[in-house]
């Protein structure tokens, strides 16, 4: 992205220079210049993975594509009836040059990520016939939830370096090992622990991957629906949308999704966290009253 921004800035500079050099600089001419610059860059850095058929654009005076996106609900309320939900991330490619929805001219990757939280990974080994946790590895942070959807497998869309730098894909989820764990663990072992975190979370339905889940509905409109399981840890989510063409990122978009307790759920949680001892006493009181009520009810029944 930074590279792209820098290049756009250069383009703007070109424009200014062009404006100064030629007496009648039309918008179209300026765009041709900017466009031409971008195209030349693409030729130099053309992705070896290849692009879908029909992707080769003739150098025309066309405006740059950008992506605009949003989520179906920016605030998800966790109430007592919450049993998971689905977040639809939809968006549109502005200045789309795609002839039809099926053309595969653009690639889109959608990442929905939860808050980072500390995680401990442990490994069992057999000690005298029993399976015991013998090794542990601390992560300063791992996303509580991570879902990725794309128009096709992400390895075909972008270079590994890019995916890694932007934490796109289950192989590149941002897991920060704690220094105290790193110094006493072999690099190969660290890899095993990292893979274990992703694997366990995948099994729990908290890390998801769906190739081909981003679908173009028209020339510019796309959508992806991502499952949010009922046991998703409560906290804000971030949706990131990347628009690619031929391995190059053209535009990105980011949107926050609030995931919050509401109503009685919020009240109980607040009570339990702010006044834990009082909350404990309250729970015991409910238990005692319930026990007494049941006794009284049954005694009356027995007496009758």
């Amino acid at each position, binding site marked *: 992205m930074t590279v792209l921004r820098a290049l756009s800035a250069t383009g703007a500079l070109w424009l200014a220079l062009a404006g100064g050099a030629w007496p009648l600089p039309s918008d179209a001419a300026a765009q041709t210049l900017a466009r031409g610059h971008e195209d030349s860059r693409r030729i130099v850095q053309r992705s070896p993975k290849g692009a879908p058929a029909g992707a080769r654009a003739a150098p025309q005076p066309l405006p740059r594509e950008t992506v605009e996106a949003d989520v179906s609900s920016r605030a998800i309320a966790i109430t007592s009836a919450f049993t998971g939900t689905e977040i639809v991330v939809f968006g549109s490619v502005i200045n789309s040059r795609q002839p039809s929805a099926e053309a595969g001219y653009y690639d889109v990757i959608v990442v929905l990520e939860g808050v980072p939280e500390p995680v401990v990974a442990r490994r*069992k080994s057999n000690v005298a016939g029993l399976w015991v946790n013998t090794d542990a590895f601390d992560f300063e942070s791992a996303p509580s939830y991570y879902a990725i959807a794309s128009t096709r497998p992400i390895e075909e869309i972008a270079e590994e370096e890019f995916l890694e730098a932007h934490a796109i894909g289950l192989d590149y989820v941002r897991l920060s090992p704690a220094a105290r764990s790193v110094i006493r663990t072999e690099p190969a072992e660290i890899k095993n622990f990292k893979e274990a975190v992703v694997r366990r979370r995948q099994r729990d339905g908290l890390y998801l991957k769906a190739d081909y889940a981003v679908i173009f509905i028209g020339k510019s409109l796309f959508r992806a629906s991502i499952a949010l399981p009922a046991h998703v840890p409560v906290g804000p989510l971030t949706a990131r949308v990347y628009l690619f063409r031929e391995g190059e990122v053209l535009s990105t978009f980011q949107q926050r999704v609030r995931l919050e307790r509401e109503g009685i759920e919020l009240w109980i949680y607040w009570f339990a966290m702010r006044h834990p001892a009082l909350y404990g006493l309250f729970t015991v009181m409910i238990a005692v009253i319930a026990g007494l009520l049941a006794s009284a009810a049954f005694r009356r029944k027995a007496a009758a």
Partner: protein
Amino acid sequence: MHIYLPIAEMPANVLLFLGMGSAVGFLSGLFGVGGGFLLTPLLIFSGIPTPVAVGTAAAQIVASSVSGAIAQWQRNNVDIKMGLVLLAGGVAGSVIGVQMVRILRLAGQFDLFVALAYVTFLGVIGTLMLIEAVGAIQRARTQQQPLLQRGSGQHNWVHRLPLKMRFHRSKLYISAIPPLAIGAFVGFLGAIIGAGGGFIMVPAMIYLLRMPTNIVIGTSLFQIVFVAGLTTVMQAAENYSVDVVLALLLIVSGVIGAQYGAAAGARLKGEQLRLLLAALVLLVCVRIGWDLVATPDDLYSITTSFGGAP
């Protein structure tokens, strides 16, 4: 039908947990045990995070024990003095136990310790009870004297300790040290494994203190009410792991189950009760033990700091 649990952060099937609560409540009323040793593993098997299962089970134990204790009280089956001595020990043990939970969790050995404690105690106690109950039933058939009849000449080491107290209701004159120690041990273990400890206390009172079986059940329930109540408050305050919504589901169904259990218990003979309890204890023991020795499908596991706990 589902309801979202605010602390466990997951939806729960209302009918499943109501069923679980009433089944455990029934057994609790029947045997005079809190039922935690059944409820905690059941909650964990159904997907509730271990700390929440342990913390919330304590709240349910309070409810089912209150209603069970009152049912026993009405039959004059509670030795208050003995209960208070056990309780004094239990409070001390529980406080130490909750601290121990934190140390074990930091070391990553909490689950192992819980499983080992369950297997050891359930295994030993279940086997002893099974042998004794089978023997008692056989003797009853051949019209012999039961083993547990106390005569004036029957004194073991328990009766030679100092600090003697008279327990009128149990018809005992023994040292206060064994009940204190039993209470402390049960309180300690109860805090760690999320059980009131009735399954340990009941046999200890029968075989070590030689209390009459009918008094044992009422007294054990009386003591459990207070220890489980204290444990609930401490689990909420220290580990933020008590889910009041889950507790409510288990409590409502548990107290009703406990009443039916107590009524059913009154119609069964002591040795039959002990045989059934022994079988149940061994069943849970085998189930937990299996997970310790069977090769796990994934050697790795991950844990997060729980809820808003620092």
